[in-house]
């Protein structure tokens, strides 16, 4: 390989530059800002345990959609035995009423675009 030294040095510089935010946080000694969520409810238990909701809410919503639209089922039981209506607007946003302080905070942070609310209605905040 010609100029191996120069090339390797250039690659190292590139790797350093692209991972700069990581080194910056390491040097500062604390992690970057985390999204701060306003849960918006005093209810103890969501439809599933919190950790499962955090990891799998999109799969749950997908399953609800299939059951409501394609199978005509509307009610389901939560892991706590409560019966809820499978409805994004009425059940999910019924508790997490402030979408901009709940859904949007994480989705903006992770740069994952939400398309749910292009059709599903966000009820007006009763304040």
């Amino acid at each position, binding site marked *: 390989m010609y100029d191996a030294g120069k090339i390797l040095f250039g690659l190292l510089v590139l790797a350093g530059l692209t991972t700069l935010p990581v080194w910056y946080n390491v040097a500062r000694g604390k992690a970057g800002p985390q999204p701060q969520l306003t849960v918006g409810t005093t209810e103890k238990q969501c439809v*599933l*345990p919190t950790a*499962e909701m955090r990891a*799998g809410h999109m*799969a*749950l919503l997908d*399953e609800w*959609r299939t*059951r409501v*639209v*394609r*199978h*005509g*089922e*509307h*009610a*389901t*039981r939560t*892991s706590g035995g409560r019966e809820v209506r499978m409805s994004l*607007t*009425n059940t999910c946003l019924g508790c997490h009423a402030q979408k901009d302080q709940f859904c949007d905070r994480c989705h903006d942070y992770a740069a994952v675009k939400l398309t749910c609310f*292009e*059709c*599903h*209605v966000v*009820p007006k905040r009763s304040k």
Partner: protein
Amino acid sequence: MDGNRRGFLKAAGFTVLAVGTGTVSVLRSARARPDAPTPSSQPAGANALVGKRWGLLVDTTRCKAREGCQDCRRACHRAHNVPDLPEPRHEIKWIWTERFRNTFPDAEHEFMAPAILDRPVAVLCNHCENPPCVRVCPTKATWKRPDGIVMMDWHRCIGCRFCAVGCPYGARSFNWRDPRPFLKEQNPDFPTRYRGVVEKCTFCDERLARGLLPACVVSCKQKALTFGDLADDRSEIRRLLASVRALRRKPALGTMPKVFYVV
């Protein structure tokens, strides 16, 4: 070479074993996912209206559309967030009125009184037994439910408009524009639609699931609309259909509409 082959076969055998058991355990854990569907004991809610073949009878002799009544249209469009678009070519409609001559093109003749020919008739999706829209949909975004309702899944609709072309009744509207700015109020019990999907009447499947009759039927003060199960010979709609001469729209096409008209 012998030693090498022996070693190779051993390694290959262990690899197959490892991959095989790995796959099985991955499949197991996938099956035990917390979000996997749980069997529901109540398919559609405890007090849902359940039918085998939903149908609607429109009694045009009672309907006050001639006098400008718009109760059914207003109730339906408010319940389903159907916008009022100013441009007729962008219009979205689930239930509306059509002149008699256009509603029943095979029942009119040149000697009919103009008053009859131009009489407004309430029209909506016919929820055909043999729906051409379902046949042409490339994504299964529209399908016939076991209870006969021709249902729509707006999540799946790609806006190709094959269904709108396939429907001989003009019952499907396409969202050329974002409908939200044209909604005076949003009903949180029902979603709005997005630019680029087709929509139509769903016989109020969401109300039937809660034990309510369709919004148009409930809103009609003249009781011109009768909704019921055509498969149940003791239902009111069957009793009425047996006692009057009811028409269907364009019966020669073989779509077998489930919306009937007393003219």
